[in-house]
C-alpha cells in the first residue's frame, strides 16, 4: 500500500462530489503527463460563486482523493478564491502526499482552474459582469 495519510484514505474511500453536472457552466479536463491519467471537473456558477462542483477521475488513489478534496475546497468559494487553490494547498489539506504522488495534486487544481476559465471565456462573450 502506498503510504497515504488517513485523510487521503478517507477521501479515496468516500470521495465527495463524484459525478457530472449535466448543464455545467464550465468544464475542465486535464491529463496527467506523468502517468497518463485524467480528471474532469464540472462547475455550476451563481453570483460569481461555485454553487456546485463535481468531478470524474481516472487515476490512482491519490488522484481520486485530490479531486474529492479540490471539489470540497472549491464549493461555495468565489471564482477568484477558487483560482487561488494551489496543488500545495490541496496536498496540505490532505495531510500530505507521498513525494512521487505530488503531481496528482497538480492535476486536480489545474482541472478545476480550467473549468473556471472555460466558464469565464464563455461568459465574457455575453457581457463582462463578473470581473470586479
Amino acid at each position, binding site marked *: *500500500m*502506498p503510504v497515504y495519510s488517513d485523510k487521503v484514505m478517507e477521501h*479515496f*474511500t468516500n*470521495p465527495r462530489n*463524484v459525478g*457530472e453536472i449535466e448543464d455545467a457552466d464550465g468544464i475542465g*479536463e486535464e491529463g496527467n503527463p*506523468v*502517468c*497518463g*491519467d*485524467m*480528471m*474532469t471537473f464540472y462547475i455550476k456558477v451563481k453570483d460569481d460563486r461555485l454553487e456546485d462542483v463535481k468531478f*470524474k*477521475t*481516472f*487515476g*490512482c*488513489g*491519490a*488522484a*481520486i482523493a485530490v479531486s474529492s478534496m479540490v471539489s470540497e475546497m472549491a464549493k461555495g468559494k468565489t471564482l477568484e478564491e477558487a483560482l487561488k487553490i494551489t496543488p500545495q494547498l490541496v496536498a496540505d489539506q490532505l495531510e500530505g502526499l507521498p513525494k*512521487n504522488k505530488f*503531481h496528482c495534486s497538480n492535476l486536480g487544481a489545474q482541472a478545476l482552474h480550467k473549468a473556471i476559465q472555460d466558464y469565464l471565456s464563455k461568459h465574457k462573450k455575453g457581457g463582462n459582469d463578473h470581473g470586479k
Partner: protein
Amino acid sequence: MTKSYLDHTAATPLLPEVREAMMPYLGDIFGNPQSLHDWGDGAREALEAAREQVAGLIGARADEVVFTGSGTESNNLAVKGLALAQQGKGKHVVVSAIEHFSVLHSARTLAKWGFEVSEVPVDRHGMVDPDDVRRILRDDTVLVSVMHANGEVGTIQPVKEIAAITGDRKIPFHTDAVATAGTLPVDVIALGVDALSLAANQFYGPKGVGALWVRKGVRIIPLLDGGIQEGGRRAGTENVPAIAGMGKAAELARQHMAERINRLVPLRDRLLKELAARIGHVVVTGHPGNRLPGHASVCVEFIEGEAMLMLLNGKGIAVSSGSACTSRALKASHVLIAMGLPHEIAQGSVLFTLGIENTDRDIDYLLEAMPPIVDRLRQMSPLYDKFMKASRGGN
C-alpha cells in the same frame, strides 16, 4: 473479514515442513559450513543436502548449483558473470524486452561497461519468437538471456527452441526460471540451457535465498570477492537456515508438482472466465493457453490498478498491479508496453497469482467483492463516461 491472498508472485507463504527444516539451523546447529570442526560439519551437511534437493528439482548435478541471496542475485551473477567471462570473444549480449529488471538492469550495466545489448521483442501475448533471437545473434554475441516464464503476464517462453539456436552457435544461454522452477517441471538438460536462476520464495520456501545453476564447464566471473564458498562463485558465509529451507521446499515442490498444477489450473481458468463475464471490458494479458498454472493477469478497462488494489485490500484481498501509478517511478509495466498494450489499458492492470493454499472459496469471494469495486471506479471514470456516451451515440 475473509482474507484472500492472491499475490504469490510477490511472496509465497512458508510451508510448515519448510520452517521445521530450517529450525535446527536457527538453533543449535549454528556453525559455519567452512569450519573444520563438528559445528561446521553439521552446517555443511545441511548445505550439501539442500544442494542435492535443489539440483533434483531441476535435473542438475549438485556441484553445478550455486546458492545466492535471491533470484535477483542469481540473475545478476548470470548476466554479468557469464558476459564478463566471455568478453575476450565479443561484447554483444541479447536479452528479451520483458525480462525482470534484475536481468534488464544488469544488461544496462554491461552496456556501461562497454558491451552492446540487443533486446528481442515479444508479440502481443508476451511471447518471444525464437527466429527473432536467431536474427539478432552476431558473431560477437557472448550471452543470450530469455526468461522461462514471465511473472507479470504468465507467458511461458519457447526456451528449448531458443537453446537449440544458441547451442548450435555455442553461445551461452541463461534463463531466468524464477517463475517456473518449483512450479512447473524444469529440467536443465531437456531445456538445453547453460545457466538457470531460481528463487525459493516462489515455491513456499524462505525469502533471501536463490540459486544459480551453471552447466559444468561454463565459465563465470563471480560478483563478490572473498572466500571460496560455493566453489568460489559466491563468496560470503552461507545463509544455512534459508538454504536448508530452500532444499526442503524444492523437495516438496518436486513431490507435489503434478497435484499442485492440477489444483491451480482450474482455479485460474475459473477466475479468468468468470471475472471477465461479471465485469466486462477485461483484457486478459499474456498467452491464453501457454501460461503459468496459477497465473491470471488482466487489464480492467477504464480504471486504474492502484485504486482497485487498495479497494480490494480493503476487502482483505491481496493482488498486485503493473499500472504506472503503482510503480514508484510512475512508469507502466515495461512488460505490458512491450506487448503493445496502449497506456490507458495498461493502467488497468491487475495481477492475481494463486497458490496452493487458495481454494474455490477464494475465487468465490473475489468474484463477489470485485465487481462492485470495478463498478464504483468506473462510475468515477471520465474514460468510462466517454465510452458509454460514444456507444450510446453509436446506436
